[in-house]
């Protein structure tokens, strides 16, 4: 079979297609976005009629995938780690309902927060929901695990969580493909009440789930991914999770002290394997890309039975991603070091593109807000969060998608006037609409600025769910048409736009200002695509 050079994300996408997936559901989010992008661009997905449209948010994606599984087909959902918070209600309950067709959930974590608000570790969600978790060590294993994940899901009738982190998601390596297999034909669940979580049914299913979770520990496929390599140097044993193993091998290649190593990539872990390692060593070093999940379990509440080194005692930094150099020093190795960065090297933070419409909205808003004082602009997650940086310094919050609207509502309730919410179009349809309904019902004295660039810009310009429909959505939710203003954020309209903003900021009720101008990156990409098409036609 063919070898391909694939990102970890792409390996997962290709594997799901080869493993007979019928539908993929996702909302973009770094570092998970390329999974869906690969499926969308795949000729195989098109010929196999694989469903592959973006969803409005991670919860709707998770639910649609669960529905496809209900109908007997294999489905995959992908999201960044914080997306799993949004999907959590559906995710946790899907373990209680169980599945019909194989259901695989991919969560891409971002330790060190390269492009995220936190570095939460999705393995905890797996344990919380009591589902199998697979954490591939490399691109090939990511590909292979997806086949097993669908099989495990159909064997145990449980969703399976795949946990990856930024470095695997965004690193390319050669991947050997397997023979593709057919999609499932549709079928109804064998138990027609399985998905009806009325308390009487839910109690029964939850009890079954707790039993099943213990059984998973000895599943041969899961245990097969957790490998113990014996060693004669029993002064210290090493436990690695996921890609931490690679950083260990990188160092052992240079200097192998013969430590026994337990490399984990599947959860829940069979405690016999851990007992074998711990029992034979004086102390154990735990290397985890993420939170100290295994380390905490090893220590237990009393932390006195096993001598453990890891993130909790400072052997490994408490936060941030691992790398070969950190692992070297946790092993007590003198890592080689290069020169220091010369003092003249300056920070180069990301910035608005030249000609970005968001920048023009901020320019107008900055002027108008001078009359009202600082600390009044709640914002959200997207390119426009860059309004927090100079020269605007305008943004006072960025918490979770949609929070700008509802935080403004709460602050207004506390007497802050005017309170402004600044949100993008994709974020608005992800989680801003429901908050806006709250504001409509109480006629909150806030001004919501929806900076609509007709795309999901921050993550690379994916289709935005409600392009062209935001105004009618606002009206449909009940926004007063007199206080729904549409502006075009261009420098030449600055005076006019400032006047609109000043009027609405002074209004003691809900106002929505819809600032509409296409993202210049998306616009130029569309223009190029159109030109290429025209070229081809000629």
């Amino acid at each position: 079979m063919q070898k391909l050079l694939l990102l970890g994300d792409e390996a997962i996408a290709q594997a799901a297609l080869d493993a007979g997936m019928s539908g993929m559901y996702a909302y973009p989010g770094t570092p998970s976005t390329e999974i869906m992008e690969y499926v969308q661009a795949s000729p195989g997905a098109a010929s196999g009629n694989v469903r592959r449209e973006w969803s409005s948010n991670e919860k709707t994606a998770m639910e649609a995938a669960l529905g496809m599984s209900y109908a007997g087909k294999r489905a995959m959902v992908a999201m960044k780690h914080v997306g799993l918070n949004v999907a959590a209600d559906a995710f946790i309950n899907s373990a209680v309902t169980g599945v019909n067709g194989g259901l695989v959930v991919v969560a891409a974590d971002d330790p060190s927060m390269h492009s995220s608000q936190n570095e939460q570790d999705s393995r905890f969600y797996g344990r919380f929901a009591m589902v199998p978790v697979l954490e591939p060590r490399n691109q090939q294993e990511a590909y292979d695990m997806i086949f097993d994940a669908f099989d495990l899901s159909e064997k145990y009738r449980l969703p399976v969580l795949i946990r990856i982190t930024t470095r695997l998601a965004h690193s390319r390596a050669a991947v050997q493909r397997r023979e593709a297999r057919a999609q499932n034909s549709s079928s109804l669940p064998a138990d027609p009440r399985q998905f009806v979580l009325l308390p009487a049914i839910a109690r029964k299913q939850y009890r079954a789930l707790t039993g099943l979770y213990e059984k998973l520990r000895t599943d041969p496929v899961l245990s097969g991914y957790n490998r113990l390599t014996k060693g004669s140097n029993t002064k210290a044993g090493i436990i690695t999770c996921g890609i931490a193993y690679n950083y260990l091998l990188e160092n052992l290649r240079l200097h192998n002290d013969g430590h026994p190593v337990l490399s984990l990539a599947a959860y829940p872990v069979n405690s016999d394997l851990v007992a074998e390692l711990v029992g034979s060593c004086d102390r154990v070093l735990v290397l985890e890309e993420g939170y100290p999940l295994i380390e905490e379990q090893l220590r237990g509440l009393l932390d006195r039975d096993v001598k453990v080194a890891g993130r909790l005692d400072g052997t490994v930094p408490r936060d941030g991603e691992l790398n070969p150099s950190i692992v070297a020093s946790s092993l007590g190795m003198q890592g080689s070091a290069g020169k220091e960065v010369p003092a003249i090297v300056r920070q180069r933070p990301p910035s608005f593109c030249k000609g970005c419409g968001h920048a023009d909205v901020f320019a107008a808003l900055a002027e108008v807000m001078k009359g009202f004082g600082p600390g009044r602009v709640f914002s959200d997650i997207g390119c426009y969060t860059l309004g927090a940086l100079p020269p605007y310094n305008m943004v006072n919050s960025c918490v979770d998608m949609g929070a700008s609207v509802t935080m403004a509502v709460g602050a207004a309730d506390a007497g802050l006037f005017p309170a402004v919410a600044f949100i993008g179009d994709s974020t608005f349809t992800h989680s801003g609409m429901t908050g806006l309904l709250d504001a409509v019902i109480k006629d909150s004295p806030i001004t919501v600025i929806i900076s609509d660039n007709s795309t999901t810009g921050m993550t690379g310009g994916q289709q935005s769910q409600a392009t062209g429909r935001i105004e009618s959505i606002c009206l449909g939710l009940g926004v007063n048409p007199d206080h729904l203003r549409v502006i075009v954020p261009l420098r030449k309209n600055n005076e006019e736009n400032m006047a609109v903003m000043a009027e609405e900021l002074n209004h003691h009720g809900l106002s929505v200002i819809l600032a509409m101008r296409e993202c210049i990156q998306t616009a130029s990409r569309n223009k190029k695509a159109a030109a290429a098409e025209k070229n081809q036609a000629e």
Partner: protein
Amino acid sequence: MKCDIILAGVGGQGILSIAATIGLAAVEEGLFLKQSEVHGMSQRGGDVQSHLRISDREIHSDLIPHGGADLIISVEPMEALRYLPWLSPEGWVVTNSVPYINIPDYPDNAELMAALEDTGNTVVLDADSIARELGSPRSGNMVILGAASSFIPMPFEILEHAVQQLFSRKGKEIVDLNIQALVAGREAAATR
């Protein structure tokens, strides 16, 4: 054989096409390859880097350890310096001399050139002018790759072939311009 390379630049400057070229060449040579890229937030005018590792043995880590890189290839002079902690004492820096100034406190050019000089094994060239003279102002990244090519343990023809593959979709004219840029970069580095 192993060659660990850090590619550096500013979002939008095209370091990923340098990475893709070396990647294609490595595959053609039957080498192992791992290439870690930055996506997302940092694409927008911020600093970007990619760790590219090629070897005739299996590669474990996607990231290069500190002090382990054989080569820093940079399309921007200040960005070349940002990754010195990764460079091995015997490693080389090949960089464009043309600054990309999108921050108010960008360092003084003379200081910048002195710092580059200080690092020892450095090749600094004006890739933008070379590309412009060829009539292909957007091929500066291929000029830089050409200048770095003598430090990459692969036959030059393999790199040329990779450039051909990478740009073939864009037509023969673009392919030829990029190959000319690659060759010009190699010659400029050799005649310094």
